[in-house]
Every structure is written in structure tokens, then in C-alpha cells.
């Protein structure tokens, strides 16, 4: 049941997916890995859409160099934990939802527990090592993994549904070298809002997901396109069938 305040807040989107769709959003728990460039638009739009429980993870402190893109954090937040800043803003944006902001580094030892009983994982990370760990958990728990990546004016998005689509490692078997990547804030905005759109569609059962398709954004040419992606039968993470490999067969950490 919704309060009068909630009915008013969500009125314009319940015109799209009804009170039933809104109820699904309210009951949902979404895990957002990262409160940075992608995590900012993702968490803001999921919060205002009324996703009932949002867990957002980050281990960093707000730095001045973050502010061109990480719109959850303001100038006054420099030096503050990103989780504290994120919790405050998201709770102000929507007081009717639950925000769990957890200040921790995601690693192989804690990732499964952190994701817990979430209904989906949003990839707002800046490195493939952690993305692969999240991908493994999504496969183990058979929950969707909403992948996004940005660099400069370029970005990529896809929605991974274990058992239905390729997993992240089917698509990108090897991580690129880490770097201090150039980026403009709008690229994070474009890619992050597409990820949020995917989450909202998934939870409400609306439209077609970005499944089996890699959406590629070129902001220099203002051009978007898709590449069809396929499962890899020799995938290290899922054997191409969306199921976990047996422990003994895995050779990554």
C-alpha cells in the first residue's frame, strides 16, 4: 500500500506501469556497486523511481577530481566518505525508501554476502576485477547484472540475465589494463541512466531489455549502435550456459 505522498510522487510513472509496477519497485532490493560516476545517476534515478531498498557500496572518500561527474557529491563533501554523502542525498531525494550505504571494498571474500538477497546488481565499478566478482555472484544467485562502462565520450551498456544472455566474461574474457581514465560527466549520465532504465524495466516487466546486445555510445559523433553478443561455450565463468562452473574447474581468483 502507498501513502498519499507516495501516490502523488509516483503518479506520472504509474501512468506507465500502474500501481502494480510501482509495488514491484517498492518491494525490490537493488545492489549498486560503486557511488562514483555511474553510481551517481544510477542511484539517483532508482531512488526517485521508488526502488524500495537500495544498497550502495563504495570505499572511497570524495575527491575534488570526482566532481566533474559524480553528481551525488557536492563541493562541500570533499574529504567525506562517499557512502555518507550518497546516503544523505538519496534519502533527501526520497525519504520513503531504504538506503543502505556500506563503506567497504568489494572483494572475493565478501561479495556474495554483500549482495545478499538483492534482486539485481548494478555495475558502477571502474575495474574489471571487481566486475568479474559481481558477475560470478549474479550467476551463482541467478539475478540480473546491469553492466556499464565509460571512458572519455564513449560508453557501453548491456543487461546480463544468467541462463539467458552471455555473462560479462563471455563478452569480455580479459580485463584491459587499469588506467586513470579520461571522462566527461555526461558520459556517466548517459550510460548510468540507461542502466537505471534497464533496472526499472526489469523490475516492472516493461518493454524489451538490452539482453544479448551490447549498446555502444559514441558521444563524439553523437552516435549509438548495438553489437550482438553471444555466449561463449568455453567461458571461464559460466560455460556459456549461465550456470556456475564447478569449483575445481575455475582457474581465476
Amino acid at each position, binding site marked *: 500500500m502507498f501513502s498519499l505522498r507516495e501516490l502523488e510522487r509516483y503518479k506520472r510513472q504509474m501512468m506507465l506501469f500502474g500501481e502494480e509496477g510501482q509495488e514491484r519497485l517498492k518491494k525490490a532490493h537493488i545492489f549498486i556497486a*560503486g557511488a*562514483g*560516476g*555511474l*553510481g551517481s545517476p544510477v542511484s539517483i534515478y532508482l531512488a526517485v523511481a521508488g526502488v524500495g531498498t537500495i544498497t550502495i557500496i563504495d570505499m572511497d572518500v570524495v575527491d575534488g577530481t570526482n566532481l566533474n561527474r559524480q553528481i551525488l557529491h557536492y563541493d562541500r563533501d570533499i574529504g567525506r566518505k562517499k557512502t555518507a554523502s550518497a546516503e544523505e542525498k538519496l534519502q533527501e531525494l526520497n525519504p520513503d525508501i531504504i538506503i543502505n550505504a556500506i563503506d567497504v571494498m568489494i572483494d572475493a571474500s565478501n561479495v556474495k554476502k554483500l549482495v545478499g538477497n538483492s534482486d539485481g546488481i548494478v*555495475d*558502477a*565499478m*571502474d*575495474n*574489471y576485477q571487481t566486475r568479474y566478482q559481481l558477475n560470478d555472484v549474479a550467476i551463482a544467485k541467478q539475478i540480473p547484472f546491469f553492466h*556499464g*562502462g*565509460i*571512458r*572519455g565520450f*564513449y*560508453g*557501453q551498456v548491456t543487461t546480463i540475465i544468467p541462463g539467458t544472455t552471455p555473462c560479462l566474461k563471455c*563478452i*569480455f*574474457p*580479459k*580485463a*584491459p*589494463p*587499469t*588506467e586513470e*581514465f579520461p*571522462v566527461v560527466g555526461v558520459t*556517466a549520465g548517459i550510460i548510468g541512466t540507461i542502466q537505471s532504465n534497464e533496472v526499472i524495466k526489469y523490475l516492472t516487466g516493461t518493454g524489451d531489455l538490452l539482453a544479448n546486445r551490447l549498446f*555502444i555510445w*559514441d558521444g*563524439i*559523433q553523437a552516435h549509438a549502435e548495438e*553489437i*550482438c553478443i*553471444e555466449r*561463449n561455450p568455453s567461458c571461464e565463468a559460466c560455460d556459456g550456459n549461465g550456470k556456475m562452473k564447478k569449483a575445481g574447474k575455475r582457474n581465476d581468483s
Partner: protein
Amino acid sequence: MTVKIRFFAQFRELLGSDIITDAPAGTMFTSLITSVARKNPEGYAAIFDKNGAFYEFVILMKNGKRIDIADADKTVIADGDEIAVFPPVAGG
């Protein structure tokens, strides 16, 4: 024969987006990309390692189908083929 090569993301910044190029019949995937990438040393260095092999993270496609890096030097290019070469975009 004429083939089209599409680079993405930072490869595109360095080498251009849609490259139509002539290549002799029987050209292999690796040698085609090598010759096009050589036009910009920085572009070449982003895609190939010191031994001239594709970096293991580079994604290769021919006519929408994935080509394994291990198979790229024995994959023959045909007239009208469309090649895509791209990196995983990593930032967040």
C-alpha cells in the same frame, strides 16, 4: 577487394571510425588490422603488444561474429567483410 573496418572507443579516437580499405585477396585478419593500425603508432600500440600480437583484452569481430585472437592470423578476409575491433571500456 574492399573491406570495412570499424574501431570503437579509444581505438576509434586514434585510428578513425569507419575505414574502407583495399586489401589483396587472401589477406588474413591480423595482417589487415596490423597494416591499418600502423598508420598511427599510438593506435598500433593500443591494440598490439611488442611482439605484434593482439593484446588479450581486444575484442575482434567479423560480420558480427566473434573471432578468437588465437584464430585471427588464420582467418581469411573476403571482399565486403565488415570487421570490428574494440576494447572493453573500463571506467565507471
